[in-house]
């Protein structure tokens, strides 16, 4: 090659063409190198664009849907999360939490990782994730049970997985739903790792045949009873028992109407009840007391007129189901209505204005359930008001979804009027 170039230079033949060719070649090579380099950068950028487009597609493919009952209370040890000394519900000598199972279905086409759950409450005051300020409860994943956490093992939901339960824990001072009947709703917000936020209202808005009902019952249900208290038939060994081998000692703090879910609520001027007073307590129940004879039980359900028309609830029933066979109760008649601090028998039921709430009190003369504690869990599947609601949008029956209640506490009234154990 060098001999060829020397030959050309000595003979001065086509030197210009040679030099020009070399220059053009150099320029072309430089340009080619630049083009190759920029092409590689552009390819990398396009790869990033493609990856992010795929990311966006996955983001858009997430779809979590809450399934009835939305949240359900849990009173047991959750394997791998809670322990015997730090568990959901009340057990003697343990750290207690208010635990709930959130039932969720993944109707999207990609797996979802839940990174955080926010629970907001409507209204400005009260507990239920709104006290003392309207700050939401913020629940982060945790490998062990702790207040304001949810089970990290429940964090991933496969595509197509239905009725998946995410267990979450709140302090015992925070009860859901919001106990303030005027603001009964909670908003559950589920944030995912891809930045989507799915929310649902709980308790669910009642809906039958796709139509929202105008009467709406929420999760609070309390019971009262009249009759002779038989301490020997009290619930020995109950969860949260003050004395391990003694009766439960129904010692909830007494409050006049309206009271929060953690209190024994005193309703006065109840016609047809000896003494005219009923003490409604949290629903722990024992068949031994129920079967003691001569005992009449009362259950109230908080019902809100969510429609646009006023109506008078003059009749109705409640449906209660316990585990096993023969534990289904239905057609429990409406005993009366407690509205704005006054009791009304069904015949004189008041007019419930839209947006107002009332207690529908149902009467049970005899109940038979299984033997506690293994069969003490009951749930109520709904309540109905059969008068006053007369259109398709205002169906005569309405359901709030099944809500598990862990048994029934019984408070009795002593001669001094303070309540306590026999």
């Amino acid at each position, binding site marked *: 090659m060098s001999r060829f170039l020397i030959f050309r*230079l000595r003979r001065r033949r086509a*030197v*210009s063409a040679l*030099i020009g060719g*070399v*220059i053009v070649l*150099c*320029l072309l090579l*430089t*340009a080619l*190198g*630049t083009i190759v*380099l*920029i092409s590689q*950068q*552009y390819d*990398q*950028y396009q790869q*990033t*664009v493609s*990856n*992010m487009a795929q*990311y966006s597609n996955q983001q858009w493919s997430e779809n979590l849907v809450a399934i009835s009952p939305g949240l359900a209370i849990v009173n047991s040890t959750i394997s791998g999360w809670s322990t015997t000394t730090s568990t959901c519900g009340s057990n003697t000598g343990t750290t207690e939490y208010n635990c709930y199972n959130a039932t969720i279905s993944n109707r999207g086409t990609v797996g979802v990782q839940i*990174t*955080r759950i*926010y629970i*907001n409450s409507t209204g*400005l*005051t009260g507990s239920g994730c709104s006290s*003392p*300020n*309207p*700050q*939401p409860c*913020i629940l982060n994943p945790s490998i062990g049970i702790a207040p304001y956490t949810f089970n990290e093992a429940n964090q991933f939901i496969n595509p197509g997985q239905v009725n998946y339960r995410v267990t979450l824990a709140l302090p015992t001072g925070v009860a859901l739903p919001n106990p303030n009947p005027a603001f009964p709703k909670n908003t559950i*917000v589920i*944030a995912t*790792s*891809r*930045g989507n*936020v799915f929310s649902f209202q709980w308790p669910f808005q009642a809906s039958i045949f796709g139509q929202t009902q105008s009467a709406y019952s929420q999760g609070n249900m309390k019971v009262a009873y009249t009759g002779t208290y038989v301490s020997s038939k009290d619930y020995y060994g109950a969860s949260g028992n003050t004395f391990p081998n003694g009766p439960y000692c129904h010692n909830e703090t007494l409050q006049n109407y309206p009271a929060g879910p953690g209190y024994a609520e005193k309703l006065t001027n109840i016609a047809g009840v000896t003494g005219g007073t009923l003490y409604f307590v949290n629903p722990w129940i024992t068949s031994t007391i129920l079967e003691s004879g001569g005992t009449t039980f009362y259950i109230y359900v908080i019902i809100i007129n969510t429609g646009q028309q006023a109506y008078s609830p003059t009749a109705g029933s409640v449906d209660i189901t316990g585990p096993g066979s023969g534990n289904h109760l239905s057609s429990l008649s409406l005993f009366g209505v407690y509205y704005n601090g006054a009791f009304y028998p069904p015949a004189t039921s008041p007019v419930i204005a839209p947006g107002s709430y009332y207690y529908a009190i149902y009467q049970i003369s005899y109940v038979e359930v299984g033997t506690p504690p293994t069969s003490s869990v009951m749930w109520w599947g709904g309540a109905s008001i059969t008068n006053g609601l007369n259109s398709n949008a205002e169906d005569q029956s309405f359901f709030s979804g099944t809500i598990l209640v862990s048994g029934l506490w019984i408070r009795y009234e002593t001669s001094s009027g303070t309540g306590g154990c026999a």
Partner: protein
Amino acid sequence: MLMILITLSLAAILVAWAGTSFGSFSGGSQLFFAQRGQALQERFVIEEVFFNATATGMPATVDQQIFVFVRNVGPININITAIYVNGTLLQPVSGGSRNPSWCTFSGTLFTVGMLVGAVCEFSLNWPNTACSPNYCPWNTAVTTIFQIVVASARGDQVAYTARAP
């Protein structure tokens, strides 16, 4: 021979100039694509906003608080550099006990680095001086809409509209 040398010199200069030009061009494009690629990979969301108010309302002399939760859901770390509320640049204060250790606020220069997957709570004081009757979070008599914009160092923004309280 002289012409050849001159030609070769000019050719060398031309090639050097072309190389430098192409080099700076490719370098610039590399920087452009790198920055664009990083900006493209930034993904962050405002997943929750709530306001601090009481049942009876806060006194008009007290600043209100707006809590903004921002999560980095992209594949790269990001820096949050500004938060605007209704067009006003607000300086976040400490996020409180709910904030993890990586969401630290230092000095007056507001830049919060967020790792991949991290969520930070930004506590904003809506100043009393900026409170008109139509824009007080505690004034429930009017519909108060807040347009919240969070901006990153790479120029990305996310917006969130919230009604208070």
